[in-house]
């Protein structure tokens, strides 16, 4: 039966239940046990996924489940990213009393489970289930800071839009099902190939719904409206979570739906993605300029990154997919580092949310300023940081399919985007600090953020390993 292929998912599920019980019945100070168990779970699941890496592709459980390199790789990353997220969450929720509950981790774990299901889903049903399992805890987590009006507002916006999007996705799924009579991705792909022109219109209609549903989760324009509000409104530790790991899962979903299920409709979805990519890059970069809240700015910057990533997918080539994968991985670690920095700079009674709060960071903590500088320049796509090679990879893929104009347009938007990244650096380095309060010294956070940021540099100087990995995932 190959149950061991399911091991990471099963493990996380079991542990989530165990931790739920522990948290309920074992009284603890500072949630230490819950926290450690959660982190341990993530680490172990990552190891299990790692162990499953490079095993032959397994499709089982009546075609609902797939274990391939993409899924294992993304599962590792999801676990890792969540691990980092939780490192930054611990102090954050402890110092904000009403959030300090075990549910935070448990919800997070369930969401991770949803993501894992999503990345290894092989049928429309599992995709839907994974998607919802991932999203529902997220809605709750956004609203966890219960007395915060903005958090609730963000939650309801996220929730309503998310529900709408999954409704659309479902509608598309139902149409595809109606045409092909199947839910298994490969079966659908096969039957579309065989009966090419039959019900083409319905197929395309379904495709459009599916594209909208999946791009919504990624946060591509014009389905991006929730992103800035949620990122800004949610507690920063949740923002890290929302902005990072789910993107990996959503990326996998998009790729499975478009590249695995509907490669035959390539000519139909490519133009859609081109539009989305251009809009995302444009809106993301343009609107980020006008922001004074750094969380919101990073949200818009995230939208633009999704646009660049989409460039890779829309090529419809393996090189493009691997470029997109590389991009999304790079993006996730950049955004992780960016938001983590905000957590690190916040303390009880002070949330580092506005650009102004970074003023003169170089005077207060040169090291952290330097880390943030790396993040910003990586996001801007400057060598020798990983963000540059991410952009390079997608541009390369786009030019390879003779969409040079698109690459030029993307570059133009990158130039516009450069401005606001530079502004962050400017605020940190060139402006005099307004506050001289010491920055709290949490070794774990500092270590993690240093590793994270230096990784951006390291993978920028030696991108080959990661690039090759992303490349091999699709072989």
């Amino acid at each position: 039966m190959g149950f061991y292929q399911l091991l990471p998912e099963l493990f996380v599920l079991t542990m989530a239940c165990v931790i739920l019980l522990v948290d309920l019945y074992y009284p603890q100070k500072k949630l230490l046990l819950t926290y450690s168990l959660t982190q341990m779970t993530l680490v172990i699941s990552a190891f299990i996924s790692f162990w499953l890496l490079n095993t032959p592709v397994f499709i089982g459980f009546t075609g609902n489940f797939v274990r391939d390199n993409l899924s294992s790789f993304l599962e590792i990353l999801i676990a890792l990213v969540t691990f980092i997220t939780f490192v930054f969450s611990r102090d954050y929720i402890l110092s904000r009393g009403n959030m300090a509950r075990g549910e935070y981790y448990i919800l997070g774990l369930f969401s991770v489970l949803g993501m894992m299901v999503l990345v290894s889903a092989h049928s429309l049903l599992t995709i839907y289930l994974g998607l919802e399992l991932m999203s529902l805890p997220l809605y709750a987590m956004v609203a966890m800071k219960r007395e915060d009006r903005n958090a609730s507002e963000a939650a309801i916006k996220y929730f309503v839009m998310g529900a709408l999007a999954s409704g659309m996705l479902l509608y598309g799924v139902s149409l595809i099902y109606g045409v092909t009579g199947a839910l298994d991705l490969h079966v659908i792909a096969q039957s579309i190939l065989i009966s090419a022109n039959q019900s083409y219109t319905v197929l395309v209609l379904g495709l459009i719904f599916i594209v909208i549903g999946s791009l919504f989760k990624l946060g591509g324009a014009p389905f991006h409206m929730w992103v800035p509000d949620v990122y800004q409104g949610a507690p920063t530790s949740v923002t890290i979570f929302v902005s990072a790991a789910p993107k990996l899962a959503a990326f996998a979903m998009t790729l499975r739906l478009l590249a695995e299920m509907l490669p035959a409709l390539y000519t139909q979805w490519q133009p859609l993605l081109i539009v989305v990519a251009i809009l995302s890059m444009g809106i993301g970069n343009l609107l980020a300029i006008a922001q004074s809240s750094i969380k919101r700015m990073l949200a818009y910057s995230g939208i633009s990154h999704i646009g660049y990533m989409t460039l890779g997918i829309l090529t419809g080539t393996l090189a493009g997919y691997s470029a997109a994968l590389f991009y999304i991985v790079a993006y996730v670690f950049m955004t992780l580092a960016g938001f983590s920095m905000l957590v690190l700079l916040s303390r009880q009674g002070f949330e580092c949310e506005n650009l102004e709060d970074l003023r003169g960071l170089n005077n207060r903590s040169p090291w952290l300023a330097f880390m943030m500088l790396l993040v910003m320049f990586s996001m801007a796509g400057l060598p020798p940081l990983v963000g540059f090679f991410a952009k390079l990879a997608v541009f390369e893929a786009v030019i390879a399919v003779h969409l040079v104009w698109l690459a030029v347009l993307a570059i133009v938007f990158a130039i516009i985007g450069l401005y606001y990244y530079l502004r962050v650096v400017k605020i940190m380095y060139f402006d005099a600090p307004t506050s001289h309060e010491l920055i709290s010294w949490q070794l774990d956070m500092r270590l993690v953020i240093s590793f994270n940021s230096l990784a951006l540099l390291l993978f920028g100087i030696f991108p080959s390993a990661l690039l090759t990995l992303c490349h091999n995932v699709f072989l």
Partner: protein
Amino acid sequence: MIEVIKNLCLGIVLAPLAAALIAGLLGKVIGRKGAHSITILGVLIAFILSLFIFNYTVLDNFGPFNFNLYTWVHSGSYKFHVGFLVDNLSATMILLVTFVSLLVHVYSIGYMADDPDYQRFFAYMSAFTFAMLMLVLANNFATLFFGWEGVGLISYLLIGFWFTKPTAAFGSLKAFIANRVGDMGMILGIAAILTYFNSLSYKVVFAHKAILLNQTIMLIPGLHWQAATVTCILLFIGAMGKSAQMPLHVWLPESMEGPTPISAMIHAATMVTAGVYMVARFSPLFEMSQVALSVVLVIGATTCLFCGLLGIFQNDIKRVIAYSTLSQLGYMMAGVGASAFSAGMFHLFTHGCFKALLFLAAGSVIVANHHNQDMRKMGGLYRYMPITYVTFLIGALALSAIPPFAGFYSKDTIIDAVKVSTIPGATYAYACVLLGALVTALYTFRAFFLTFHGENNVPAEIKAHLRESPWVMTVPLILLAIPSVLLGFVLIKPMIYTVPGLLGGSLTVVPQFNVIAMMMPDFHGALAMALHAGMTLPFWLAVAGIVLAWYFTLKNPGVAVVLKQRFAFVYWIMINKYGFDDFNQIVLVRGTRRIGAILLNWFDMSFIDGFLVNGSGRLIGWASKIMRHLQTGYLYHYAFAMIIGLFVFVGWRLL
């Protein structure tokens, strides 16, 4: 032999350079005495070695020697060297340069005695000698240009020697810029040479000069010009800058802001004559273009007369001499323009001596008067400074071309050469140089009478200290007075009326322009020429000039005042120097600044930077602000945006 010459030349050139470097860099270490000793030693070495060279080259007639020291630039087809050409022309010229320089160095010990920047001054002077020698000795255009600009630089530095004086700072800048205008022509001329000959070496260029005959160049569409003409005129523009020919003469009067020894050496005897030297040096090229010669002649003659006229109206003793220098440079140019290259060079040599003499004598007067240069506050000085008086008189007589002083021979030769010349413009030029003789005598003796004769107007406190200058200043005067008397008499035959002559094969004259050959039959020796002077117009004009000067300054000064009132307009033009300065200041300087300001403000800052660069920045910022409003914060708008997206996609892909 050539090795010996090479080493001699190196010695000549490097001795002043080394002296200059030591005096300049280690000035504080070696002190004032050390500075003047080392530089005088350097120039003395150069002078002595020049004598050897002169002996070898001119008297013993070995030579010419042409050699390269090292390759300066080698690029593709072209090789530019640093090298020397020692022939009669350059050998004679370096003798003059080192001689005058030596005397001026000695003289400066006295003149500059009270100056705090003593060492710097001597360093500059030695450096100037170096640059001038490079200019003279060059065997190719690149080296020539090095010396050419080098003397310009040091002239700039020396005019601005007392840089805290605003007028000195202004004068130096003006001198440099005016020279640069000429140099621009010069460098284009050099570029033309390279284009036509693929080489900058004199030897190659002169050997292949026929190349120029078949070439034309189209500067304005439809108008073909002789390559020779264009090249020569471009080079001549360089000469105009350096030799202060109209309209680039404006800097020379300003250069009087420098110390007087400098005026004597640089702005009278040596540097300013470089233009004449260059035209003579390139006589093979100039001879190929009648147009170019004509231009040289007309400009020279014009400068000769009109700058001389200005000298009459000056009250500053140095400025009078400065305008006289301009006028005499005009004579030289007219001479070479008339193809009497040897006559031009002849005047260059004699003028170098008597003008240096005049300046140094004037300097002596100025020192005695405690740096007052206004002649109206002098007068009757002959009683106090007899040596200066006599030497000044000798200089003045030489300048006024009274036989048998040096200036008579050289100037009369030029006037005769212009008279017999047949190239276009010669008649006009003749009129100019003829009147120039009158004018020269007039302003020279006006200055002479005002300074040394008449009523003593020296302020009382200075009068008490009036006395003759120290020997370091008077000895050079005497040494210069000797050639000012004799040089013409001695040199006229060997230099002008002998074939091949003192300057020998350095000069080329084609038969149809050879005015000297036409004058040859009328020459019967130097003495005869002096005796014959009474029969010639220029002599009587000069005498008339002296008499007029005497009449207006000593006999009846009131007439001058009446004339001034009667011809107020002419006087106004004259004291404004024909308006050249105002024109430059208002049209060129202010115009340039205006253009610059317009380009800067309207184009660079407003259009490119303001509109295009920051404009696009602003546009993006504006778009960003506008688009922000799309994100209204209302849930139903967000949903609506998604639906719009849906409809657009559906409509686009399915309809």
